[in-house]
């Protein structure tokens, strides 16, 4: 099958506006007869469900959480981008578009990304109207800050809790539609299969997590907004329950998985401290506005710090290597995530790591504290102030900006980051890969749409900071509610879909059998222990850097682990009951398949780009070496059956507006 991204023709800046006005509309009286299932209530799902409800469709929204407000989006810290140019610093829709294409290392579609930049400004308007309390300046207007990979200040934020505030805005809009009866909410329901009728997505099988009952839900169309699959790695910054099941089950029903190997490793996370660790905590990228990243210049100092004989404060200025500033003078500490992460890994590989495990670098705020302190003293008319007073004033400014992050750091590590620099290390954070979708956000399965992190659409091989919130809300508020019309306009005469049809009964039975299979293994090892082992394989061989030999080894290991899982896993409790271990088992089973596909994709992509660094393809200075002649495509994988080789389809990426260049942040 030839993959057609369906990007409309015409000049880049006019594509979306023109196209939007040609999308077939569904008349209001017909909308009432159309049922839409939205799976997920994060930024993408809640915004889509609320907007579709407002438009008059009958919406059923599903989440495995006990409330739509708990979705993983709630944890986003740093901010959301928008091309408002309120700073008058030269920002524009084109610049946001360009930064995103370049940041993604030229592996995303121009048309989609430009549309994202265009609607970004409406998102901020919408959020403010909902009552999202963004940070403001004394004049009462909205404040901005900078994020990595760009040279303008276009990130809107609400302290360190931007995701929380945006999700609460979307949740409130969703709640309004629930109260009006246009959205029916199904909390504690997990989608575990997709149902197709005559080749079209027409419903889902969901498990009621409280009773264990399997339910069949039918609709004219299904929207997945189920988030990313970073938890394949076991340890990541994602919430514990994030998983790939909805997307993976759709792949098993024919949807293509695009660019699965593109995972983002975030440079600033709190390092792992022990084997019992259940997750990793992000320290927002916004900290790199003011924090300087360094390691000691020589190994003896690093060793002394690791062994607790010295602290950061004992290392004089000229013995510190501010390696990002040194290697990338133009962007300094604000290089994109993939670049910063690899640089930290290189430093630690050279024996300069500063945590007992050897895996950490410093993120130091002392220069910022001094700078802010002086400026504050000046602004308040204080003269001849002592160094201590300056520090105190500076710490207050830093607290106002990042207080909650500093507090979180101290709670977890027991160290005070105002006094000692933070220790950070890269960790899995986000997945650029996801379900393949066309310009309409429809997968190759007619009637199945995907929005937010669960699709592959806009970030190419590397996502820029503060762009996931933007994309999730763009998809949900401003793109999908229009483009869904391209599918639905032909369906206005289709009567309600029958959830008792043979396809539904068959899918339900298959799910029941699958659950039965897991429950009846009765082996000796816990689900958790398999997940941990999978995560370690993925991190060791398909993490920050990859090579062909390692990937081949990893594929073999995963296949063995999967076989062992079905022979020796133990799922306690019963299937007809509230059973978190069974929920986990179903998710880990899908991760065990997804992991292998990520490895295959990483093997296929014989180039380094963005978050995908193949050791075989690098410049003499250790920078990523892209191969545009052979790999400027989206890889879209088709599932072919249990233990069969999946088939690779390629969507060639066409660049009409930007010139493909080596990404340089020097």
């Amino acid at each position, binding site marked *: 099958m030839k993959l057609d991204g369906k990007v409309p023709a015409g000049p880049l800046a006019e594509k979306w506006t023109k196209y939007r006005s040609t999308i077939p509309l569904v008349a209001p009286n017909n909308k009432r007869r159309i049922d839409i299932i939205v799976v997920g209530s994060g930024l993408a799902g809640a915004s889509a469900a609320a907007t579709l409800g407002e438009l008059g469709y009958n919406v059923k929204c599903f989440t495995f959480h*006990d409330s739509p407000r708990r979705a993983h989006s709630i944890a986003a810290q740093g901010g959301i981008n928008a091309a408002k140019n309120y700073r008058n610093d030269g920002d524009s829709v084109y610049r946001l578009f360009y930064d995103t294409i370049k940041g993604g290392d030229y592996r995303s579609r121009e048309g989609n990304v430009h549309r994202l930049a265009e609607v970004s400004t409406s998102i901020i308007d919408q959020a403010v109207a909902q009552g999202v309390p963004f940070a*403001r300046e004394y004049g009462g207007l909205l404040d901005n800050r900078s994020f990595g990979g760009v040279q303008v200040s276009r990130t809107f934020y609400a302290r360190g809790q931007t995701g929380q505030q945006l999700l609460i805005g979307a949740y*409130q*809009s969703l*709640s*309004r539609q629930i109260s009006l009866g246009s959205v029916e909410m199904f909390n504690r329901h997990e989608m575990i299969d997709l149902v197709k009728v005559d080749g079209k997505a027409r419903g889902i099988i969901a498990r009621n997590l409280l009773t264990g009952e399997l339910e069949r839900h039918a609709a004219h169309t299904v929207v997945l907004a189920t988030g990313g699959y970073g938890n394949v790695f076991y340890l990541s910054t994602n*919430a514990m329950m994030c998983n790939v099941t909805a997307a993976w089950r759709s792949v098993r029903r024919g949807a293509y998985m695009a660019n699965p190997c593109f995972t983002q490793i975030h440079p600033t996370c709190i390092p792992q401290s022990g084997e019992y660790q259940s997750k990793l*905590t992000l320290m927002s990228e916004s900290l790199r506005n003011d924090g300087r990243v360094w390691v000691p210049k020589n190994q003896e100092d690093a060793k002394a710090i690791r062994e607790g004989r010295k602290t950061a404060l004992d290392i004089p200025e000229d013995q510190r290597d501010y390696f990002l500033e040194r290697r990338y003078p133009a962007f300094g500490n604000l290089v994109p995530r993939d670049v910063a992460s690899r640089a930290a890994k290189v430093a630690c590989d050279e024996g300069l790591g500063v945590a007992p495990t050897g895996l950490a670098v410093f993120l130091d705020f002392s220069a910022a504290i001094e700078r802010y302190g002086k400026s504050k003293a000046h602004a308040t008319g204080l003269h001849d102030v002592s160094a201590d007073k300056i520090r105190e004033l500076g710490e207050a400014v830093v607290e106002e900006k990042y207080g909650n992050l500093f507090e*979180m750091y101290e709670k977890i590590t027991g160290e005070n980051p105002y006094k000692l620099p933070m220790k950070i290390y890269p960790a899995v954070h986000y997945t650029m890969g996801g379900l393949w979708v066309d310009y309409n956000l429809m997968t190759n399965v007619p009637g199945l749409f995907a929005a937010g992190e669960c699709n592959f659409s806009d970030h190419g091989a590397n996502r820029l900071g503060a762009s996931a919130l933007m994309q999730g809300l763009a998809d949900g508020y401003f793109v999908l509610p229009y483009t869904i019309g391209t599918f639905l306009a032909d369906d206005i005469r289709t009567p309600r879909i029958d959830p008792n049809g043979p396809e539904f009964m068959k899918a339900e039975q298959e799910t029941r059998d699958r659950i039965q299979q897991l429950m009846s293994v009765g082996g000796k090892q*816990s689900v958790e222990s398999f997940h941990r082992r999978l995560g370690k394989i993925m991190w060791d061989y398909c993490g920050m850097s990859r090579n062909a030999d390692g990937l081949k080894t990893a594929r073999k290991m995963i296949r063995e682990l999967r076989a062992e899982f079905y022979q020796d896993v133990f799922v306690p409790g019963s299937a007809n009951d509230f059973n978190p271990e069974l929920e986990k088992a179903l998710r880990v089973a899908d991760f065990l398949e997804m992991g292998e596909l990520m490895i295959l994709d990483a093997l296929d992509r014989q180039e380094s780009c963005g978050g995908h660094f193949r050791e075989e393809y690098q410049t003499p200075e250790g920078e990523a070496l892209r191969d545009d002649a052979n790999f400027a495509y989206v890889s879209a994988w088709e599932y072919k059956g249990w233990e069969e080789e999946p088939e690779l389809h390629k969507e060639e990426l066409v660049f009409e507006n930007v010139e493909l260049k080596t990404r340089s942040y020097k």
Partner: protein
Amino acid sequence: MKLTLKVWRQKDGQAKGKLETYVLDDVNSHMSFLEMLDVLNEQLIAKREEPIAFEHDCREGICGTCSLVINGQPHGPMQKTTTCQLHMRHFNDGDTIVIEPYRAVAFPVLKDLVVDRAALDRIIQAGGFVSVSTGQAQDANAIPVEKDQASHAFDAAACIGCGACIAACPNSSAMLFTSAKVSHLALLPQGKVEAKRRVLNMVKQMDLEGFGNCSNITACEAECPKGISVENIARMNREYLSASFTSEEL
């Protein structure tokens, strides 16, 4: 360190529950409280027993999913700290720790330490929003909002909907939770327009759900992991009074 845990076990909503005792021999002080429970659960699974059901997700203190009453305190002994952010370094070798679910009529126990908090969603559905549909908004900078005012609104909006305030209150009152939303929106020009309807409808729903009255004990504020202030309750009371006097929609 060695710990004795007394944990509430209850098969489902109908069953009678009781405290079971477990001993953990080797708890690392860098672990989080929930990681300590993970370790216990792995041990139970190894013995082919059913693990303890408890809720959690972000483990960063922001999603509001975790709960637990630890030694009588919702979210445990540390101020402004959710259970998931509590670390074992705040306990001592040899301690006995009692772990129970939230107790409130409006929060029925579902299993072990898991309770149903859907009532909080219904309070929001009753009016905790601004009635603006997608695409209706004007430019974000069209209405300036005073920095301090926005900051106060933020303080109230920081509520994570965990329900600890209710678990802490002898009356199981949901005033702190409800007032946080009422304040968040009433403090902003965008939310002012509907303020009267909102407060009346939300308070009505709160009563319908079976939450108790407020008698100014302020245990809610003391146990709130996000430091939501009881000033919000005072503000809600003012809003409610003035709305009751002037609203035609009673």
